[in-house]
Every structure is written in C-alpha cells, then in structure tokens.
C-alpha cells in the first residue's frame, strides 16, 4: 500500500517476484493500476488519502474475526496497559482526541498517558507542538517510566481503559461498509484483503507490509504508518522472519541521510537537536531527553561519544564535552518553513545539494519566488537543473511576471560527482549499509560531496584562523583532519566511516554501542552505526554471495544496529523464549547455554537476559527491560498499539480527509487532520472542500507520482538521452469516463488547473485509472507523473506547480499525493493569459489572492 514498488524499486522488487514464485500472495492496494498491480495477485483501487480508513477496517476485521495473535499482543505490546481514564477518543469529541487546544491548534497530551504516570513527556512538555521541533522529538523516544514498567496493567486485556479495548472501540466504526464508502473499493475486495492478511499471519505464517511515499506524502502521513503498525502488532508480524513494515525510501540513500541526518531537527542516530532554553547543559539535555529506561537510557554515552568524534581533544569533562558548541533550534526550520521564510526575505543564502525544489517541491512558483529573494544560491548537481536556472527560465518569465534583470540572486553552479565516481555507503530499507567503491575519477571539475564539504570547511577554518571570537571556536576546534587520497585530494571516505563507527581511547575500533562511555574515553560519530568498522574492517564492504551462506546473508554489508538484520527479533520467540513455530524459528532462548541463539542473525536483545528476567524496582537503562519485552527502543520494551507520546496528531490513527477533497468525512465532524500545517497566504491558496461554496470548480482529485523511466525531478534522467526518450513528454492519466465527461482525446492535450497554476499535458486515456463510486457519485482521478521541467533533453510543465503546501505536522512533509483540480481539453494559454486563466478559476471558486 502506498507504494509502487515494481516501478520505483524494480531491483528490490525481484525479491517480491521470487517470493511470489514460491507461493506468496501479493496484494496491491493503490489508487492506480500500476506496473506493481500488473504483477499482483489482487489489485484493489482506493481513493487517494483514504489508507487509514482501509487499515482501520482491517483492525476492525481482526477484532470481529478473532484474528488477534493474543499471546503476542499480551506479552509484547502495550495492549494490556491501562490508559488514564481521562482520555477521550475521537468519537466523544467529533473527531478530536482529548486535550485539543483550538487557540494553539495543538494537543495537550497529559490524558494520553499511561495511568499512574505524571502525564508529561520527558522534556516536561505538556503540549505537542511540532514547530518547536527540538522538543517534539523528545516524545518520539518515549516518556519517563520508572522501572520500565507501566503502573497499571490488565493481563486479561478486558479493562475498558486498557489499550486493546481502546483500540477495539476506536476502530469499531471502521466496518467493511464504511471502508467501501470512504475508499470507494468494493466491500468484497476489502474483505478479501483482510482475510488474506489474517489467514497468513500467526504462529506458522507472517505477512509483510510495504509502503513508500504514497503513505508519507499526506497531511496524515505518519498516522498511515501508525495504522499499519497496529495491524502488524495485532497480527504478530513484527520482529519475525517474513514480517515487518518495509519503508521503501524515495531514492538511493534517503535512509542513510535520515540515520546520519540531513534533517534539521536531529543529530546522528536520532538524537534530538538541543533547544536553546531547555538544554543549557549536557546534563539537562540528557535528563530531559530520556527516557531512563531501554536503549535510550544510555543517551549520555551516545551524545558524549558524538561530541568526542566532532571535537576530539577539545571536548573534555570540564567543558561539558563542547556540548555548548552544538547549534540550537527553537522552531520549525524544515524545508517549507525555510522556503516561506526565504520568501519573506529572511534567508540570505542557500546550498542546494541533490535537490531540485522548483520541480520537486509543491507549489513550484512559490519556490521560485522565494529563491529570487536570496542573495546567493549554490546548486550542486550533475546538470544545471531548473533550480539553478530559475533566474533565467521559468513560467513566470514566460508569463511576463518576472524579468531576469530584476532578480538579484547570485547563482553558483558546482558540478557533482556521480556515485560511481566516489566511495561511500548506501543504506537501504532494512537499515543495510552497502559500500560502493569509486570506479572512475569524476570528470572535469566534478567532485564528491565529501570533497566539497571538506574544502569548504577548510576554507572557513582558514578564514577564521586566529580568531578570538568565541563563536568561531566550534569551527576551529572541529576534528577536520581526514587523510587525502587520489589526484583530487579527496578526503578518505573510509576514514570518515571509521569516525562514524567509533574508537576507544587507545584508537582501537569498537564492536558495538554497548562499548560507548559517557566519560569521554570513546568517540563515535553515530551510535547506531557503532561497529561498522569493527575489527578494523569495513563491514559494509563485505560481499560474500548469498549462495555461499544461509539466507540471512550476514556476510553481505552491515546493518544498524549491531548488524541486526531483523530488528526486535526477540519477538520471533514466544514470551518463554521458544520459537512460535518450527517454521518461523529465528531467535530463541537456549536454556542450557543460558543465552539467546539464532539462525545467524545477532539477537536484538541482551545476550544472556533470560525470558523470565524481572528488573529490580529502580532499574534503569536496559536493566529495566524485562526478559519478555522485545521492543527495547521503547521505555517499556513494548510495541505501541497506542502511542502515549511522540505524535502531534493523536495516540491512534483516525481517518481525516485530505486538505483538498471533493468528499466529506463520513467518520468525524472534523473533516481534516486538525493539526495539519497550512499556510494561508496569497502565494499558497487552498481550494474549498466538499460542501463549501466553490468546491465544484475543482471537482477532481489529482495525484502525483513517478515513472520507472525517470528519476525524481528529472535532473538525472531528462538529461540522459537513453532515459529521456523512454518517457519524453509530460502526460496525464485519466479514465475513459472522465475523458467523455470533459471531452478529452487520447494522445491530445489537456490543461490541468488549480488555484496555484495551470499546466498542460498529453492525454492518456486508460483503464488503469478507474473512477470510484463514493458517497453516491464518481470520484475521478487525474494522475500526473511529476518529472518534467524547463531544462533538459525533454521538457514540459511540472505537476508540482499545481499543489499547495499542506503538511503533516509531525514531519512537515507535504501532501503531494492528493489535491483537487479541474481538467479541460487543449493546451494551456501562453503568456499573461495563463495567469488570467488561473485567476478566473480563483474568482469562480471564491479563492481570493
């Protein structure tokens, strides 16, 4: 669901094909019939943005059909935990959970907590406001829970305030009929999916869920994934071979750039960025970023080792290991927040590395207007992409809105090396790192990111050398001493990997994060990656073929944490440590040896902690995790059916309509996610939704996506002849029914209009797009691949011009997957007439600039 795996991850899809050959059933639930659907046993089309309703229906089905994996749920999840009686579910409040503060558009989360706990997150925060991101991240790692044990439990899971009963009641209205009404799929098709999933789960069998940006790019993106987590926990499909939830990332190494982040709000290994007021010292940071129990209980060794990796000898006990050198964040500095600040003149310069926001970001025009406010812009890419050319060539130039001579931004273009021209790592969906070696030197002036950032850092250090200004100390004290290799003086990527992996005081390599110390005697650039250079060997460069080892393939690459291939794999054994079944044997307790053993994967659990281990009352860290609790990243070691902290929009997923929708929400009076992040400003108008005046001006649902033949915003494919020719033109995919309704001709042209922009595309009329009957009328879909732009061998309008900024406030990802639009035959007007057309639509819809 939410994934077009065959098209976007064709290499990984070979394993799905192989599984299918071995008898696995492949089900594809997706608005469109794609190349993935073509390979599936069953394709069920749903309306974009209704995944929570579909998954909630499966939860309902599990309860109705007694398909729950009872023992797994009781022992491994927070199903038996009693939640505070003050908690109110959405049904009691027309779509709001308890704690809603309309003035702040945010939830106070005291009532979501475990009964008997203080009701505060670790940061002492009572309100989950994601735009104070340093603090919001705390909740993601769980709350303080003395001794690691929820205060009140009902092992029978019958108490009306226990999590399992809350989950059951919450989804009681998600009946097959409701699923059909919301999603538009046939009730029978939904039931087939639910039955197939339940039948294929339990002691003997497991099922896996695959998702991609079809789930994340929504105003309820995180809750889509939460809903899948609930399904998989109820069915006992986590931590077991063949199970899991697989997030296929948008392109190569997005996972790696999350783990060692290019994100603004976390440090390597998901350590939150410090907050300026809350975290004056290392001690307060560690104290407020707990929890004390579980793997996160060792935050101090992780952060101290990170500080030692960055500032080396300068980081001492006396100066808080240079904790004061870390940047602080006090607000939302995510992509769109930054671009809006740029638009308002609040950003002077930008490095744009491996990103093409004028094609890849929603509301492309707003992106370009923002870029024009910069003093300087550096674009590093293979080709001068649209973002590098915005000053010279854009729809605004065509429409006469903008003149090149009026744009003051100084633009620098730096050619980048391709992955074949540099050493480094790719991290894939199951946290597996695979080293790639440089095959050839980069041509001309092209250089790797490592080269660029190293020499940029060097130049800055030279500029501030000898400075006595304290603000320059963090730069001057950095360990910036990588060996240089090759004809271009390239910093040695393996030396960086060694720093990431971690070293003891004597310079020897560490085995795992268990070796990290909080006293400054170890250094480690990313605690979750500790041990990737174990024994002085680049473990991620291991390449023993699968034919020479068992199917776990431990000798291929390296997975974080601790080279564990299936995370939480203690859950593959029952509470007593025995395999759930012979067929699904993976990790089990060897009572004779007194340790966990496995088919070859390292047990993701303390090696000698017996299944019946019970912690002392005041235990902390991993000592506080019981022998039958596999989910060690949580303070209670349990999988969370109900999330008491960490989310801004509720402890349970609820179906909300997208920001723009031609339909009402049959479940709740509150139509959309109340915590979604919206920006009401003239450059970013929203359409009226169903029932509001003017909604019928934009009667159709538009969704955006990619094609196998192109890569994201096209910089790596529209510029390559062999790829460009495979999908040379921007097209829209529509059903025959919509073609008739709007007079659109296959192979002809259509103009797609929103209050943001009008774009033109070639028309593809196809049975692969099916109108769905929703609330008594047809929901028509306009499908748009988003790869095109104004630069390259093949050019065209960009689909993302059409979309508004409407974000999931947990993670600030925009709703690329659904908005409303109109579609009409023929090419779009040229010049100022294009603006006039959009303006006419705005007037008719009552959308005022």
């Amino acid at each position: 669901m939410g994934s077009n795996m065959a098209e976007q991850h064709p290499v990984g899809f070979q394993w799905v094909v192989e599984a299918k050959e071995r008898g696995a059933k492949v089900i594809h639930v997706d608005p469109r019939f794609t190349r993935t659907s073509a390979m599936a046993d069953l394709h069920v089309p749903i309306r974009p943005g209704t995944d929570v309703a579909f998954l909630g229906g499966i939860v309902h089905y599990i309860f109705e059909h007694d398909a729950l994996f009872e023992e797994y749920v009781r022992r491994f999840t927070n199903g038996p935990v009693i939640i505070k009686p003050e908690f109110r579910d959405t049904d009691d409040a027309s779509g709001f959970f308890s704690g809603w503060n309309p003035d702040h558009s945010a939830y106070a989360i005291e009532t979501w907590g475990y009964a008997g706990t203080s009701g505060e997150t670790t940061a002492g925060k009572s309100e989950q406001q994601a735009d104070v991101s340093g603090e919001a991240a705390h909740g993601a790692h769980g709350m303080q829970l003395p001794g690691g044990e929820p205060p009140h439990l009902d092992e029978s899971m019958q108490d009306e305030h226990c999590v399992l009963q809350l989950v059951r009641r919450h989804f009681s209205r998600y009946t097959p009929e409701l699923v059909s009404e919301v999603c538009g799929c046939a009730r029978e098709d939904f039931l087939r999916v639910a039955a197939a999933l339940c039948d294929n789960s339990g002691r003997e069998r497991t099922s896996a869920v695959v998702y991609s940006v079809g789930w994340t790019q929504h105003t309820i993106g995180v809750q889509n994934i939460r809903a899948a987590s609930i399904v998989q926990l109820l069915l006992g499909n986590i931590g077991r071979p063949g199970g899991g939830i697989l997030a296929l990332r948008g392109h190569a190494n997005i996972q790696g750039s999350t783990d060692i982040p290019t994100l603004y709000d976390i440090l390597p290994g998901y350590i939150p960025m410090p907050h300026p007021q809350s975290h004056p010292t290392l001690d307060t940071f560690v104290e407020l970023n707990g929890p004390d129990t579980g793997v996160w209980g060792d935050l101090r060794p992780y952060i101290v080792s990170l500080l030692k990796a960055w500032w080396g000898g300068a980081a001492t006990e006396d100066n808080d290991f240079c904790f004061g050198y870390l940047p602080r964040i006090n607000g939302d500095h995510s992509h769109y927040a930054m671009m809006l600040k740029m638009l308002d003149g609040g950003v002077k310069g930008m490095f744009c590395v491996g990103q093409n926001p004028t094609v890849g970001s929603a509301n492309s025009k707003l992106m370009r207007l923002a870029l024009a406010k910069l003093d300087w812009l550096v674009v590093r890419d293979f080709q001068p992409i649209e973002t590098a050319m915005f000053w010279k060539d854009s729809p605004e130039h065509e429409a006469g809105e903008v003149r090149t001579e009026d744009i003051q931004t100084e633009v620098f273009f730096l050619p980048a090396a391709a992955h074949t021209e540099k050493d480094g790592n790719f991290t894939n969906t199951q946290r597996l790192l695979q080293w790639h070696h440089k095959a050839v030197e980069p041509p001309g002036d092209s250089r790797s990111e490592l080269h660029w950032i190293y020499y940029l850092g060097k130049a800055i250090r030279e500029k501030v050398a000898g400075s006595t200004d304290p603000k320059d100390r963090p730069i001057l004290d950095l360990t910036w001493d990588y060996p240089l290799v090759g004809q271009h003086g390239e910093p040695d990527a393996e030396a960086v990997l060694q720093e990431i992996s971690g070293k003891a005081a004597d310079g020897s390599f560490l085995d795992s994060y268990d070796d990290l110390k909080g006293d400054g005697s170890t250094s480690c650039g990313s605690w979750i990656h500790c041990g990737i250079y174990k024994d002085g060997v680049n473990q991620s460069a291991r390449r023993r073929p699968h034919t020479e080892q068992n199917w776990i393939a431990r000798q291929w690459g390296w997975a974080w944490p601790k080279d564990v291939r299936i995370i939480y794999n203690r859950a593959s054994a029952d509470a007593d440590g025995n395999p759930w079944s012979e067929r699904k044997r993976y990790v089990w307790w060897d009572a004779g040896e007194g340790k966990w053993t496995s088919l070859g994967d390292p047990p993701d659990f303390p090696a000698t902690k017996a299944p019946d281990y019970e912690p002392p009352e005041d235990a902390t860290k991993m000592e506080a995790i019981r022998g039958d609790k596999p989910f060690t990243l949580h303070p209670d070691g349990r999988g969370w059916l109900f999330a008491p902290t960490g989310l801004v929009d509720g402890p349970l997923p609820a179906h909300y309509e997208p920001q723009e929708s031609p339909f009402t929400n049959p479940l709740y009076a509150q139509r959309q996610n109340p915590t979604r992040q919206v920006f009401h400003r003239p450059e970013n108008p929203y359409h009226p939704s169903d029932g509001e005046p003017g909604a019928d001006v934009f009667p159709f649902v538009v969704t955006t996506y990619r094609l196998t033949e192109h890569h994201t915003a096209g910089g790596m494919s529209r510029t390559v002849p062999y790829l460009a020719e495979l999908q040379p033109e921007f097209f829209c995919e529509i059903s025959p029914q919509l073609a008739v309704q709007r007079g659109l001709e296959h192979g002809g042209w259509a103009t797609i209009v929103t209050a943001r922009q009008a774009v033109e595309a070639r028309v593809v009329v196809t049975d692969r797009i099916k109108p769905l009957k929703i609330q008594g009328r047809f929901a028509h879909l306009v499908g748009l691949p988003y790869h095109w732009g104004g630069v390259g061998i093949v050019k065209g309008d960009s689909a993302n011009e059409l979309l508004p900024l409407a974000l999931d406030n947990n993670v600030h990802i925009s709703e690329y997957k659904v908005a409303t639009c109109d579609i009409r035959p023929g090419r779009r007007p040229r010049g100022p007439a294009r603006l006039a057309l959009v303006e006419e639509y705005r007037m008719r819809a009552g959308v005022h600039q």
Partner: protein
Amino acid sequence: MTLETTSWPSSYGEAAKPRMGFFTDTSVCIGCKACEVACKEWNQVPDSMQGFTGNSYDNTIDLGADTWRHVAFIEQRVPAGVLDGASLVEAVQRGEAVDGGVQTYQEGDGFRWLMASDVCKHCTHAACLEVCPTGALFRTEFGTVVVQEDVCNGCGYCVPACPFGVLDKREDDGRVWKCTLCYDRLKDDMEPACAKACPTNSIQFGELSELRERAEHRLAHLQGAGQQHAQLYLADDDDGVGGAGAFFLLLDKPEVYGLPPDPVDTRRDLGTIWAATGAAALALGAGLAAAVWGGER
C-alpha cells in the same frame, strides 16, 4: 530437439560452443526497460527519440537499427467481448464500461497489463543470414546470428528477409544493425547486457537446450496456476523458423504482443518459387519461340 543450424556447429568443428540464447519469460516482466537501456549503453546504440506515442508506456515503438531490445506494453481488458471493435471512449459512450471492474486478470476477469521484452530471435533457419551477399551476417560459434559492421555494405537484402522485421538500416549510415546477443561479452564469458540488467530474471541467458527445459517447467507451472493462454513462442524445432535462439513465454497469443503468430523462414518457398519462375520462363520461352516460329510461317 536438435538445435542445429546449417552452419552451426558443423562449420566450427571443435571450436563450436554450446548454442546460447535468451529465454524471455514475460510473466515476470515488470516493464522497467532496463534491458533497453543496458543494451544501448553496452553496444553504444544511438538514441532514438520517437516522441510521445500514447501507446501505453511504450515510446520505443518497435525493434530497429537503433533499438535492439524493445519492451511492449499491452493494456488488455478481459473479457474483450464488450469492447470488440470499439475504442475505450466509444465503449463508455455506450455505457458498457462504467461498472467494469478493474481487477488483475489473475483473479478472473477485468483488466491486465502485459509487458514483454522483444529482441532478435537468432533463428535456427535465419533467412537474413542466408540472403546476405557479402557474408556480413554470419552464424557465430555460439549459434547466434551477428552482423559484422565492417563488412555490411548496406544492400538491405536481409531487411525484407526477416519474418519479424528485426533487421533495419540505420538512416544516417546505410548499414544494418541488430542485436548481437552481445557477441563481445559472450567471448569473455559474460552474459548479455540486457539479461545482466533484468531485475526480475524475465530475460534469462544460457545454453539453449537448458533454457528450453526450464521454459517447459515454467509453462507447466503457470498453466497449473490457471494461466490458460500461457504458451511458448519459437521454442519448437518444427515451427516456421526451426525454433529460435531467443524464445519467449507469453501469457496470450503472439499477435497480442505484436509478434507474428506463424513466422516462416522467408526462403521456405524459394524452391517452389524458383521452380515456378523456371516453369514460367520456359513457358515464356516456348511462347516466344512459338511466336517466332509461328511468325516465320
């Protein structure tokens, strides 16, 4: 199964290698076109921009001098009875398709999207090779059919000789180009670029005899799983081209994929044709003679 051709292995003696070929199992093709791109990259085939075709996701159109692998996309509504002879739009106007289910074909009815990667067939009876006057086209020690670019004089005889329309002259150079089954890679014990790049093993490379066995098993498996129209194409020594070095497993009739249902070696009837021509010449000669003689009378 004989697999022998007129010149392989006999003309190679001890230098003959096993006959190598492709088994393209279209049932696992995901239409990624990696084969098309890998082929062009390895063989330095020029790009061949054809523009937007509107023919499903196929913008390559056909095999040709600059396209040695081609992935066909067929959007198929099953059962087709409702739509016979009508376009999708016409069907809707007739109100017949509104409630048509969109389900995968495997589940019974509805809709399916077939994808198949096509290539030169490297026929057992390769007419192209036989009609080539310069010897540019030859049978390699692997039993494959290759054009030697430094010998081809661009006469074009092979073009109409191919029953599949594979052979094609490159506009700007006049010579004929086609799949070599990566002859250069084979010589270095490497598999062809397309097979190497195929993520789902839809394109399988190997000894033809072994591929044929594998294909029989695969066909039996699919038929057992309810794919009633699954069939092997060009895997039969008795077909019109004597079987091919590149054969296919299709999920429907060959013509659905744009492949000739009953291809024949275009020289098959040459004997009869020459005999008829001879007879005609004789008859003409006799007539002329009669006329001459008659005229003298």
